[in-house]
């Protein structure tokens, strides 16, 4: 089966979306998977559209920006609508990750993708909202499905099973398998460490312009 995955993160290969795509790709092994990044240079929209037009399942993977789809991803989706998706048998799926704890905060972006699929007259499959995308690069040594990645592993298994069968499913939102109060402390500290690397002190982070 032809599967086309779109990475809508401006952080490209270093993005949390890319990590999720890699997890999914290994679960979808045996299928003909094409992964395209909308920010990657050297590939035309026409080429991406060709792969979309021949796929059975289209999966949009992107980060949540201010409660919804990032502007450049939105532009990409509008351009596809304008050019017209020829293959109306495509089933659209999406996986949205955010920098908060709660995966449910991705629900509006998922709804927007569903509205888009209606506009371009293709079938809607399923959306998953993943909380705490920023934790993923720090868990590369943790096997998917265990520890803080337990919930993500379970959901991706269900999600990719549906994709393999181009089956519909209820939208699912997941939090990391990790206490929220600890997450909140660690996430806040990580900003201080990142700023320190740039020689920015804690009181400078708080500054008003």
């Amino acid at each position, binding site marked *: 089966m032809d599967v086309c995955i779109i990475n809508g*993160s*401006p*952080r490209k290969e270093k*993005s949390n979306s890319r990590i999720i795509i890699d997890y999914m790709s290994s679960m979808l092994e045996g299928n003909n998977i094409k992964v395209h990044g909308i920010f990657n240079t050297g590939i035309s929209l026409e080429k991406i559209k060709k792969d979309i037009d021949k796929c059975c399942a289209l999966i949009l993977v992107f*980060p949540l*920006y*201010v*409660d*919804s*789809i*990032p*502007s*450049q991803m*939105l*532009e990409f*989706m*509008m351009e596809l609508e304008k050019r017209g998706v020829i293959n109306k048998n495509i089933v659209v799926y999406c996986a949205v990750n955010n920098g*908060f*704890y*709660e995966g*449910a*905060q991705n*629900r*509006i972006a998922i*709804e*927007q*993708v*569903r*509205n*888009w699929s*209606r*506009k371009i007259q293709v079938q809607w499959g399923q959306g998953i909202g993943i909380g705490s995308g920023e934790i993923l690069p720090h868990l590369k040594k943790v096997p998917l499905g265990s520890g803080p990645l337990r919930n993500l592993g379970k959901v991706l298994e269900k999600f990719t099973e549906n994709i393999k069968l181009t089956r519909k499913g209820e939208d699912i939102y997941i939090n990391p398998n990790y206490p*929220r109060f600890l997450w*909140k402390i660690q*996430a*806040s500290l990580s*900003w201080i460490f*990142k*700023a320190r*690397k*740039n020689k*920015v002190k804690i009181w*400078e*982070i*708080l*500054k*008003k*312009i």
Partner: protein
Amino acid sequence: MKVIIHDMEDMNFNKMFEENMLRDDKEIKIISNNGKIKGCIGCFCCWTKTPGVCILKDEYNNIGEILSKANEVIIISKCIYGSYSPFVKNILDRSIPYLLPFFKIQNKEIHHKIRYKNRFNLKVYFYGENITEEEKDTAKKLIKANKLNINFDKYDILFRIPEEL
């Protein structure tokens, strides 16, 4: 200060602006599309390298500061799949220096703390020819979520066909 963020053609916006009482306001900042806006790259430099200011070099790197001086923000945007248009969305994507990277719990969810004490009222005019009921519903949910994450005070949403603007 009143801030207007819009995605209209300049000619149409200016006509509407002239015909309305908006010009009577003493202090107005209009944010419109000059066609050269850069997209947010998710670098978080506006929090960790140049706090409060977007690192991208264009005319839109001070949205956080502008919002900090606003008591009213008006958004005029085409409604796309229940979202703002790409230009208006880009302005909001690049408004995150208005917030702090640190977190608080509000309505049982994690949200960012705010950098500034001021809060503004928001009025959103969504326009478009064929906005579906689903898109309207999504757009309403979006503004409600934005209220928590961008931290504005009261809001009002109106859907219009372009001629009614």
